[in-house]
Structures are given as C-alpha cells and as structure tokens.
C-alpha cells in the first residue's frame, strides 16, 4: 500500500462513483481524445475547469491527485525541456547555442497541460471505480470478441488477479525488506554490483512467495469448479442509468466545444 496511489480505489458514494463502469471507461478514452484535440490555451482552461468539476463531484482529496501526478512529473519536465530548446521559430531568448522560441514555449506548455490533464483524468477512473467494476465493465465492453474465439472471461479474470496482487506483492516486498534489514542488509549501496547483490535477498523470497500464492489460488479456484465453459451470471448486472446519459452529454458538449475551437 504505502505510497502507491496510482490505481488506488478510494471508496465513496458520489454520483461519479455510482456511474456505470462502462460509461467511465468509454468516457476516459473520450477524454484522452478530447485533450489531444485541444490546441488553444483558452480551451485548455475550459477542459481544466471541466476536470475540476469532476474533482469536486467525486470528492477525491487533492493529496491523492497530487500523488498520482508526482511520479510522472520528471518525465513531463524532461520532455518539455527538450521541446523548449529544440523547437525552431521566433527567438525569444538565446544563450550560446541554446535558443528559446515562442513556438517552443507554447509547445512545451501544451505538452505539460496535455499530460497532466490526461493523467489526472485517467486516475479518476481508478479512484472512483473498484477493480471488480472495472473488469466487469471491460468484460462487457469486450464481449463481442467472444464470437471471434477470444476467451474474454478468462482474460478479464487474469487481469483482475494480476491487478489485485499488485498491492499484496508490494506489501510483501516491504516485509521481506524489513526481515533482511533486521539481519543487517543495507540497501544504500550505490554501486551497480552492490545494488544487484542487494536485490537477490529480496527477489528470491518474493518469487518464492508469488509462486506459493499462485498455487494456493489455483487450488481455491479449482475448488470452486471454475471453468471457462460454464456461463457465469453476475451478482450485480450492469445497467445504464439516467446519470450515465447525463455524463455522456457533458462530455459530448465539451468535445463539440473543443472541436469548434480547434477549427475556428
């Protein structure tokens, strides 16, 4: 658990939490397309405003948002820095061979805004939707592939299990680290070989325990007669409600506004 905030579901009862997972998945994709198509500062402001309404609506603490953005900040800054110095155009300021151009400033600013808006937007999907709902949604959206011979159910099951075990394994790493530190291991060796040697006492127990868990899980699944040939029903059937329609229309409006802004 510790400080991994990406993909962390925050239980709640807001309108956004209650939306159909399929709505949220589709709208997340739509959001990404909308942001990519946005190309004026004014409209970035508009989408940001839109996002802040979602933020208030979903009642997600700011600190969680910050934690989901923090890990990508270095990448954003790195790429926008190169955009800043390598873009040709009207020179604003120069220093030896480095030249900062008006176009460069604009490009890197847009890049920063785009990535931020996309990352924050996507994190809402996972903040407000439990893992089971996401896989239910995905399964339902991908159901047509079943006709092409893809075992959608099994894939959905595998994805659920894989994601479900991320926090478990990360907790396990912490416990293993604690155990080895208690025997004097130090993970602060900066040299490559030292680092490599430091990893083995963590990796081996981790893999061992992952395998053990896998066996146990297999056994548990078999005991419940899990079988891809049996058609399973859902406890919570997915149904689109009025609020889903409202959400779609909001995004539709935003999309149209952005498109108009782009070609005007």
């Amino acid at each position, binding site marked *: 658990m510790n400080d991994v905030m990406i993909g962390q579901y925050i239980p709640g009862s807001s309108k956004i939490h209650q939306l159909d997972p399929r709505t949220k998945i589709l709208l997340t994709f739509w959001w990404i397309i909308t942001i990519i198509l946005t190309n004026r500062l004014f409209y970035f402001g508009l989408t940001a405003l839109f996002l802040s309404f979602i933020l208030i609506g979903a009642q997600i603490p700011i600190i969680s948002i910050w934690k989901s953005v923090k890990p990508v900040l270095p990448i954003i800054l790195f790429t926008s820095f190169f955009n800043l110095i390598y873009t040709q155009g009207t020179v604003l300021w120069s220093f030896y061979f480095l030249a900062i151009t008006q176009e460069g400033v604009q490009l890197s600013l847009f890049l920063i805004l785009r990535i931020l808006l996309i990352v924050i937007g996507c994190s809402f999907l996972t903040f407000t939707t439990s893992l089971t709902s996401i896989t239910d949604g995905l399964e339902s959206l991908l159901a047509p592939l079943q006709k092409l011979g893809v075992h959608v159910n099994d894939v959905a099951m595998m994805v659920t299990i894989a994601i479900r075990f991320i926090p478990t394994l990360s907790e396990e790493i912490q416990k293993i680290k604690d155990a080895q530190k208690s*025997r004097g291991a130090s993970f602060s060796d900066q040299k490559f070989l030292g680092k490599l040697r430091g990893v083995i006492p963590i990796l081996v127990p981790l893999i061992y325990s992952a395998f053990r868990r896998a066996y146990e899980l297999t056994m548990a699944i078999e005991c419940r007669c899990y079988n891809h040939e049996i058609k399973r029903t859902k406890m919570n059937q997915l149904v689109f409600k009025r609020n889903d329609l409202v959400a779609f229309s909001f995004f539709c409006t935003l999309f149209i506004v952005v498109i108009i802004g782009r070609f005007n």
Partner: protein
Amino acid sequence: MALLRTENVDFIYSKGTPFEKKALSHVTFSLEKNEFVGIVGTTGSGKSTFIKLLNGLLAPKKGAVYFNEQNIWSKGYDLRALRFAVGISFQYPEHQIFSDTVKEDIAYGLKNQGVPENLWQDKIMEVLKIVGLDETYLELSPFQLSGGEIRRVALASIMVMRPQVLILDEPTAGLDPVGRDTIYTALKQYQKETESTILVVSHNMDDVAEYADSLLVMSAGQILAQGTPAEVFSKTEELTAAGLAVPEITQLLHHLKLSGLPIQDSLFRIEDAAQELANFLNEVKKDE
C-alpha cells in the same frame, strides 16, 4: 537504566491519505537487561508495528525510542548497528530465506556483521543446537523444510548474530504443541546462556504466561495492562472486554472461586494451580 525503551510513541500508517490508520498511540514501555517479556494482544492491536519501532524499521510519528538511553532517531545514529543489537525474527520466516543451503541462510547476518569466515561454523553449530536441529540440516535447501523447521532456521539466523535484545513475532504461529515447547525451551536456554533480553509477541496468553517475567497487553494500539503475569491476569474483566482470554487454568480457578471455593485464582502455571487445588483438598480431608 532501561536497555531499550519507548516514550509516548505514536505511529500512523499511510498518513495523509484516505487510508490513514493509527496503529499506535501513547505507548510507553521499557525493557530491562536480562528480562523475558511477553507482548500479547488481539490481531491488529499493533504488536508487530510496535516491535518494528524498536529496531528502527519504522520511525515513530511522535515520541521517541531509546536504546542504552540514546535516541535512535538522533542525528548520525547508526541504525544498522542497532539492528545487530536488537534482532527481530518475524512472523513469516519464509520471507527471509533466499540461499541455497540452511548454512548460507544462517550465515547471512554474520556476513553483514563482518564476522571472519573461519568463525562461522562454530557459531552456526551452536545456535543450530539451541533451536533443536542437527548438522544434517546445514546442507539442505531451506525451501524443502517444513514450516516448523523454517521457523527454527529463521530463529537461528537471528540468534547467531548474538543480539542483546532478541525479539520474536508470533514464533509459534502454526506450530503444534511440541513445536511450541521446543521453541520456548530453546529461548529460555538461549537466555540463560547468553544473558540476553527477550521479547516475545503472541496472541496466545497460555503461550507467554508460562515463560515471561512480565507482560505487556495491547489493545487497539494502546497499552491495556503491564506487569507481572499475576498482576495482569488478575484483571480478568478488562482482558475479556479487549477480546483476550486469561490462560485456561486461570479461568478454571476463577470459576471455582466464583462458585464459592476459598482458593487463589491468580495462578497461571499448571503446576501452581495443581498445588493450590491439592492444598485445598488436603485441608478439606483434614477437616473431615
């Protein structure tokens, strides 16, 4: 002078997130040299969190931890040296095995300590004997051992570093009664031979009642009771309210007393209880 003590420590997991969880509040505790202390409490009462504060794996959010009266979070304090002095054997021993042989696994701590290799063999044989394994285990792969054997190897791998304080988290979880006795007998013997201090975490009262000089009872991250087993077990009602049971033999005596027998009910060792009952019966016989 206390060997190891905490002063009013608080600990909070995932502070500042929606998953914030207060695991310890206002825990003040001290451990004297050569003591055998038991920490009891229900699952989730904060026992494991507390011991991780004692060797600096976790830093308290409030309060302080002192080893030999030195604050372990003061600037420049050598935490690695502290971890050799305060050894912890964790609840899940399979989390620490990674070597090809039992011998290598036990030697891991010695290697980190910088003990010359020619001394390893003697040290390893010594602790192996204490935990009740023989030299045929040395060349086995730790992954092929049973749960009880892994636990003993894990225990040996901490003991071999000769910590001044030895801490064990639920050392008998998942062991049969014989395995449990072996571990506790080993601990007692180890303590006698090395004059070290031992802290055992358990959620089973019967386990610690027999061996510990003093007990610390935790409930919901706080200290519920502290003192000798006799003192602690006299608070039957508080313990029951916190979801803990006094040892079965104490319960029996308590019920006998409630139904009118003039006997002492704060005994917790089978032998003591048997003696008390025998004394009482003899009195009755004499009167007749």
